[in-house]
């Protein structure tokens, strides 16, 4: 009996397992694009001339539409005349067969079009779609697809290109900028986009209770009063007419486009009456977002699950080629990699993979890896009040101690160039000479440390949010140990790091990724200006005056004077220690056509990854999303 019981149980288990496998196999197990052949019944109604058959037994003259037809007995005559010419039906006619319409059924075989759904992965913490609270990359994706700006940075043309504004102009003295909106641009609910929306958006963006980053807009005349809470609208934001907006400037400058034009325009008719206190909790930011861009919100946004957009057929630059774009939350790289291989995901909003994964994608003709010109500086920054590193020779020694080329090759797939200055613009940088200055030289490092009287018992605590780069920091620690610098790395989650760096200025040394824009005013504002957080406490009155002077330069030559002064100070005193500048490596399934990324040739190795230029740190994913496409799978 036990043996029967055991057999029965085994049989049950085997059957269960087989059912599970059958169920698994019954579902589509690999992603294959199916072009359906669908029989379509088309009813064609064919209009034919009326045929009238007249049969008579006697010779008679019949008036048919003014024509005289003579017929003889027993000799039937068939006359075909158009119906509208029949003026009389004679009694002698025995039989009339009239065919007015002939219905022909045609069965045609048509290739039904498969819905084009681009699937992208995201992994960063994104919790809302509030256009005034953009804080991370996925927001950028949402804005680019759903919203419009006045103008956008066109990476292919290498210039500003029209978006909501079809043309624009700057006053000769650069004290005002005027934008002419295109007529007929509509919000996703059908309401027309007008100058009122633009004026309201810019004034709302100046309210620090709504927008955490209003400072770049302070160039606009009267903006600071709104930021300070002493006014509700800025006098420099002027509605000229329903389709024209002028921005008067606080002072003549050439930075307005760069600092102010990336703001997405939001609908006044929906958000205009929302109270400040209710603004962040408004459903607009999760389930009812309405923009004027090529795609409309489709699947309501759910934090850390995903959201989706669908084509806006009324988009002012034409209906998008894609039907939908979905963003799915996948955190682990392994799961992302598998999903890419399976064709379940076509790309990612965050481009970090392991070396092995990049290699696998490069080796697979279904994918391509594309470089976007270096826009990140991976850098250290000492706290200016951290006594052991107060002598600038200690900071210089720190860089001399690092074999940066080896670090880049070992931990960043060779993707990076050592630099020493954040001012990577020939107008205010002797880049070739400066970037060669602090080469790998442990002996020189020791000399500098000795000359500075460095206390070798000091343990420097390095705070960083690169929690998955422990091996990189371990290697740095070893290199520093060779010259006698003791460093320990504290891995922190993003919010904890931000609090220590920005809010508390509580650190000795930080390592972070900083943007590397062609004009440094934004970077200086956020990192060094005494008007902002000034996390490293290097900002002072003299530096502040130079930062402000840089903003007021109307030409590159004018801006170069203060920027060069700052750059020369930085390259000697090294308050900021760039380790290397890095290109971002994006990857995508080749089915996805993206006009900017598709300019790059196919990579066959790390060395052949094509690096595409960008315009003023532009976002390639803003480039005409209505032109993006999903190609069929090669059969």
């Amino acid at each position: 009996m036990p043996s029967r019981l055991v057999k029965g149980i085994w049989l049950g288990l085997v059957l269960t397992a087989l059912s599970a496998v059958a169920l698994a196999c019954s579902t589509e197990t690999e992603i294959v694009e199916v072009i359906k052949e669908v029989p379509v019944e088309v009813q064609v109604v064919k209009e034919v001339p009326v045929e009238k058959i007249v049969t008579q037994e006697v010779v008679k003259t019949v008036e048919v539409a003014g024509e005289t037809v003579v017929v003889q007995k027993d000799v039937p005559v068939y006359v075909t005349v158009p119906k509208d010419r029949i003026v009389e039906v004679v009694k002698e006619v025995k039989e009339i067969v009239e065919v007015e319409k002939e219905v022909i059924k045609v069965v045609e075989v048509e290739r039904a079009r498969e819905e084009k759904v681009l699937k992208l992965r995201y992994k960063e913490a994104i919790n809302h779609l509030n256009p005034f609270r953009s804080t991370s990359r996925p927001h950028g994706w949402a804005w680019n697809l759903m919203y419009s700006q006045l103008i956008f940075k066109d990476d292919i043309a290498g210039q500003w290109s029209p978006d909501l504004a079809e043309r624009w102009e700057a006053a000769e003295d650069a004290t005002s900028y005027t934008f002419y909106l295109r007529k007929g641009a509509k919000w996703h609910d059908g309401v027309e986009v007008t100058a009122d929306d633009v004026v309201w958006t810019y004034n709302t963006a100046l309210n620090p209770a709504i927008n955490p980053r209003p400072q770049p807009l302070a160039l606009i005349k009267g903006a600071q009063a709104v930021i300070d809470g002493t006014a509700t609208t800025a006098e420099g934001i002027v509605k000229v007419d329903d389709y024209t907006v002028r921005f008067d400037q606080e002072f003549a400058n050439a930075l307005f486009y760069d600092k102010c034009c990336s703001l997405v325009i939001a609908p006044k008719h929906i958000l205009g009456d929302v109270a400040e206190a209710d603004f962040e909790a408004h459903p607009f930011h999760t389930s009812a977002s309405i923009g004027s861009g090529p795609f409309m919100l489709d699947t309501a946004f759910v934090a850390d699950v995903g959201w989706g957009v669908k084509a806006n057929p009324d988009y002012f630059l034409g209906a998008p080629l894609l039907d939908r774009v979905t963003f799915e939350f996948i955190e682990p790289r392994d799961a992302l990699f598998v999903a890419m291989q399976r064709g379940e995901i076509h790309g990612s909003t965050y481009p970090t993979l392991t070396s092995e994964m990049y290699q696998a994608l490069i080796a697979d003709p279904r994918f391509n890896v594309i470089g976007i010109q270096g826009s990140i500086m991976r850098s250290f920054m000492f706290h200016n009040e951290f006594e052991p590193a107060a002598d600038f020779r200690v900071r210089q020694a720190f860089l001399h101690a690092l074999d940066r080329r080896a670090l880049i090759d070992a931990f960043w797939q060779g993707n990076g160039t050592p630099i020493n200055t954040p001012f990577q613009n020939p107008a205010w940088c002797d880049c070739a000479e400066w970037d060669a200055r602090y080469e790998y030289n442990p002996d020189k490092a020791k000399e500098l440390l000795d000359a500075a009287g460095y206390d070798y018992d000091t343990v420097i605590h390095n705070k960083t949010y690169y929690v998955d780069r422990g091996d990189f920091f371990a290697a740095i620690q070893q290199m520093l140990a060779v010259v006698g610098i003791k460093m320990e790395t504290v891995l922190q989650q993003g919010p904890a790091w931000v609090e220590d760096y920005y809010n508390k200025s509580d650190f000795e040394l930080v390592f972070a990724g900083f943007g590397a824009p062609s004009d440094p005013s934004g970077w200086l504002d956020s990192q060094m200006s005494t008007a902002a957080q000034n996390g490293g406490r290097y900002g002072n009155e003299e530096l502040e005056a130079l930062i402000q002077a840089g903003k007021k330069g109307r030409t590159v030559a004018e801006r170069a004077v203060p920027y060069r002064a700052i750059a020369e100070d930085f390259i000697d005193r090294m308050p900021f220690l760039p380790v290397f500048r890095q290109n971002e490596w994006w990857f995508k399934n080749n089915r996805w056509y993206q006009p900017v990324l598709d300019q790059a040739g196919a990579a066959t190795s790390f060395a052949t990854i094509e690096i595409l230029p960008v315009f003023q740190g532009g976002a390639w994913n803003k480039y005409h999303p209505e032109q993006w496409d999903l190609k069929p799978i090669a059969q």
Partner: protein
Amino acid sequence: MTKYIIRRFLVFIPMLLAISAITYVMMVLLPGDPVTALIDPFSMQEGISQEYIDKQKERYGLNKPIPVRYVIWLGQLARGNFGYSFMTGLPVIEMIVGRLIPTLQLTFTALILGTVGGIVLGVVAALRQYSYYDYFLSFISLIGIAIPTFFLALIALFLVVLKVPLFPSHGWTSELGVYNLWDNIYHLMLPAFILSIELLATSTRFARTAMLEVMSSDYVTTARAKGLSEFWVIGRHAFRNALLPLITISTMRLPILFGGALVIEQMFAWPGMGLFAVRAMVNADYPVLMGVAFITALIVLVSNLLADILYAVVDPRIRTGD
């Protein structure tokens, strides 16, 4: 029995209070706060205004002392209000309900798979003691216990998703926002199985031991001596008694399954409570974290109560208080 259940429910109240208080204190002591969580350290091109940070802290009540904040939260909870997420502004309970279903689906499927499968395999191993079946099952269950869940998930992703594409790689359904039951079950199978493996292995070992112990007891020998068929001896006398410790193990595993679900949900992008809790922790979204902790504690306490009730059902001595 009714009195017992009511008594247990009353014990829940101080337990839940203690759990919530401890969780709250630990949570607010973590570095970072929801306002700084709004700042992406990578894209630090423009500074955040200090005024904004101060206003937001005031708005979220982060400028009040910790005990005051806890009492306010508790007061709201007593009125059935779990609060609003700092990050999305949505009601926490609404967000949790949306996440609870996938998590319960995942954990209970794993619980059933692990328990039922483990009992069946354990009984088979006990009845065939020292046979090849027994050795094989012992070996497999030891592997199941020894290998961490995340590693099993990685192996599964490589083998049955990438190399032999039997299962989908991620998600609750194939199409975001489009629910289909069969598609959902298809997506559930692999993560639920991976999550169940450790319980399956443990249950197998325990079922085998319990069954062997019972099989050598006097009442089983008596049952055989009475001339009962082996089927009845095993099914009615041995198996039922061997079930008692297994009920304890299975129900006590529920909190561990919830913990394991956190890893599995991340690996397979399963939109459940675990993933939700991790993101809330990273964002220092206190109301969400507290809501998740409270609901999870409640589920665990209720499952313990269920275990006690099941005990009484299986063992009449507990019912009568013998």
